[in-house]
């Protein structure tokens, strides 16, 4: 059984997934073998609605109003997420370059034989605290965490690999149960179903 867990070092949505995912993995490996990896994702699909923009579009006004409605919801969700993390809105809304954090995670993954198996979670948690709560510059935060050995080429290759596996946003999971095809899950809202699958499908599933 293998779980691939993808996080975006630039996103507090990924930060919110960290603790419950760590708990899922820790409680699982206490009972059964589980191979897992924590992989950074610094790309996303972006705004796919933009692909439908056309010149002289008769739906231009509708699309603009829909985009405004989406933003209204996104702002409310940001507020809720910041409250959960005890962050100011300003801190949570920070635009961060996640690349240094991603390189730290890739470097740690390449050095898996040393240290705590939960090291990627510790690194990620500390990264988010430094960058979002303490407002540190990403490269300085990364330098405090470790001396990353991974390169930008490594990161590009890792991102290409994730896209080939059908992952395009974070947090995301690939669960590969024994004798089954791998399944992709985008978003931490799937954690209850991941737990149910990993635990052996007992009882009614969470939907």
């Amino acid at each position, binding site marked *: 059984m293998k779980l691939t867990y993808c996080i975006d070092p630039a996103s507090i949505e990924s930060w919110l997934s960290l603790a419950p995912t760590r708990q899922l993995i820790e409680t699982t490996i206490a009972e059964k073998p589980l191979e897992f990896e924590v992989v950074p994702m610094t790309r996303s699909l972006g705004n796919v609605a933009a692909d*439908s923009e056309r010149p002289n579009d008769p739906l231009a006004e509708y699309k603009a109003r829909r985009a405004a*409605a989406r933003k209204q919801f996104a702002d409310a969700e940001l507020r809720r997420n910041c409250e959960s993390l005890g962050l100011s809105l300003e801190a949570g809304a920070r635009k961060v370059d996640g690349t240094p954090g991603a390189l730290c995670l890739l470097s740690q993954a390449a050095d898996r034989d040393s240290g705590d198996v939960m090291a990627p979670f510790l690194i990620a948690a500390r990264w988010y605290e430094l960058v979002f709560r303490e407002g540190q510059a990403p490269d300085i935060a990364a330098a405090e965490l470790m001396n990353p050995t991974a390169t930008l080429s490594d990161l590009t290759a890792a991102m290409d690999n994730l896209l080939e596996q059908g992952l395009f946003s974070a947090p995301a999971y690939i669960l590969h149960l024994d004798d089954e095809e791998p399944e992709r899950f985008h978003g931490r809202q799937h954690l209850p179903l991941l737990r149910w699958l990993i635990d052996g499908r007992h009882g009614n599933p969470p939907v």
Partner: protein
Amino acid sequence: MDLKVYIDFKSPYAFIAKNATFQLEREYNLKLDWYPLTLNIGSYLGTAKKDDSGKVTESTRSPRQWLAVKYAYMDARRYAKLQGLTLRGTQKIWDSSLSAIGLLWAKQYPDGIRHYIDMTYERFWRRELDIENTDVIVALLQESGIQTEGFLEYLHGEGQNLHDTLQEEVLDLGYFGVPTYVIDGEAYFGREHLPRVRWHLEGCNGPCPDVANNTVLA
């Protein structure tokens, strides 16, 4: 406490949310207040048509949009399967406004609206319901125990006007997708927010919970 639920029968995500949503009625002894939010899917996900073999015959979708749509259907299908529901991919973008006006009509009949919603969803997603056919909608209303005298007049008059006005209003209110749950002045898009809806229904005690698809159907 008032809980408004906005749906569109042609949305796979609204479909797989219906049972968890109805369970709130039982758990909290309340009546849900249903509204249609008729999506213009082509405006943000492009359009496509498939033939009976599943081959795409027309498409305005970009590769990114296809990636998003394919994932969405895969995800919705797995949750549908877990509930014993059949979700067959649609072969075109449907006009669901007729079934939406049927929903507005059905709101007058609390004893029949559940059947109307269940059957519209389940048959549509089995590809057994033409939601663009007036006779089909009328028959479904009648099967649901909902009287249809005056419905045709409503469909082409007051109902159409109400539907169209609603679609204008929802955007200004900040509602853009389905299912959307509105409670205590907060709007939540997606069934992953049902823990928060329950938190509201229970009096907002303690911290607001995180998102989760965690409803276990009774």
